[in-house]
């Protein structure tokens, strides 16, 4: 799984039958400091994060199909969790909890 920040929603009226009821979000993968890395992506969501939340993204097609309950759906990644916090090397616990990398509502 990777960490990513939700940056927006994607609306597609005309889409493949099998993913008709799925919510699609735009995400930006982030590193352990919360800084963006790599290109933005879109992903399927069944958990319900807000824009600005840091989420856990599973990059596996089978998992994504299973999440939306449709076998063989044309999806390759999905959101599997919303982060509360993360600890890196013990010492940065407080920092992560208190400011920058945190998490909710930050945009």
């Amino acid at each position, binding site marked *: 799984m*990777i960490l990513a920040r939700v940056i927006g929603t994607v609306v597609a009226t005309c889409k493949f039958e099998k993913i008709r009821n799925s919510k699609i979000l735009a995400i930006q993968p982030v590193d352990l400091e919360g800084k963006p890395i790599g290109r933005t992506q879109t992903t399927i969501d069944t958990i319900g994060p807000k824009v600005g939340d840091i989420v856990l993204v599973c990059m596996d097609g089978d998992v994504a199909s299973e999440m939306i309950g449709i076998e063989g759906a044309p999806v390759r990644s999905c959101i599997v969790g919303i982060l509360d916090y993360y600890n890196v090397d013990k010492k940065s616990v407080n920092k992560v909890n208190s400011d920058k990398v945190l998490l909710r509502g930050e945009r």
Partner: protein
Amino acid sequence: MNLGRVVGTVVATRKNEKLVGSKLLIVKSMDLEGNVVDPFVVAVDTVGAGVGEVVLVVTGSSARATVDTQGKSVDAIVMAIVDYIEVDRNLFEKVKEGKVKTV
């Protein structure tokens, strides 16, 4: 399978119900000299690894091949704790804090 070093943990309250009870670890990649390099992955722990330990991470659909993760929403698991690595007749052995050290 990739060598990695566990550098931290992730806590997520709202998550897919199939992930409930799974320990999530942040694992940074490691080169064969024991240096931690940049790419990281969040992996489900299946062997009881802790922060600082050198581990093997398997990614992709094979991550769901273990008893603990069958049918779960995971694409990366920690499935072994490394004792030592031998490369070009150099032995890197695990020490207490999980640091890799030339013997």
